[in-house]
């Protein structure tokens, strides 16, 4: 089975890119692939804890938790998060925060890299 790295650059709210990226990760995991999910730029908002579920906004916290339980490495960009006032204590438990070198290293070793979104 393959290793897939998904770089997401869209915010949680405002487009369906984040929903698509999570769906893609779920599908890949269900097919037995290994997945890295990297949040950069506005995508770091997905990592913020305390999100509330409304019927008319994307809500992905529970699905991210399920991905983690299925072995997906979910990591937010440290600089992108800090620039937006999101610090390690603000991040959902289990989501790591690393600098970009972590991601490019993982991507370099992956079989496929997919970038989704970006404002």
């Amino acid at each position, binding site marked *: 089975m393959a290793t897939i790295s998904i*770089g997401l*650059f869209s915010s949680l709210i405002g487009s369906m890119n984040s929903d698509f990226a999570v769906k893609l990760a779920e599908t890949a995991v269900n097919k037995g692939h290994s997945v890295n999910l990297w949040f*950069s*730029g*506005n995508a770091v908002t997905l990592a913020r804890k305390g999100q509330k579920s409304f019927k008319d906004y994307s809500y992905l916290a529970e699905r991210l938790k399920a991905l983690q339980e299925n072995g997906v490495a979910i990591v937010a960009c440290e*600089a*992108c998060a800090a620039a937006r006032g999101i610090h390690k204590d603000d991040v959902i438990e289990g989501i790591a925060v690393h*600098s*970009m*070198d*972590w*991601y*490019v*290293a*993982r*991507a*370099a*070793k*992956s079989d496929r*890299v997919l*970038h989704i979104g*970006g*404002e």
Partner: protein
Amino acid sequence: MAKSILFVISRPPYKSENPKLAITHAMACFVADMHIDEEVEPVVAFVGDGVLNCIKNQRSQEFYGIISTEQHIKNQLASDMRMLVCKEDLYRLDIKPERLINARDMGADIDLNVVGFNEVQKEMERCDQMMWF
């Protein structure tokens, strides 16, 4: 043998965060070997409206209070990072080569490399991974 990643930048500067994210991700390749047993070689290609990132004398500090994309590009040239600029897109936007950034004042040995899109395509085929920004 090093792994290679091609960072393709297709958006203009300041309008979007993506070009700067591409450049900072590319720069991070220089220390990626802290995590894996291989070096990671970055190559950057500016295509489409992304070639607008390569125009010199950007005044982002004056107007936005942030470091310019120009300064990031100069830092990368001074670090010997290969950076390609699509010739056809420069022509489309009537950007002459003399308007492009260089980092000779920082002692860089290389300049932005203006190439045809066919050369960018060859780089897409050569590199192990491609990241589109």
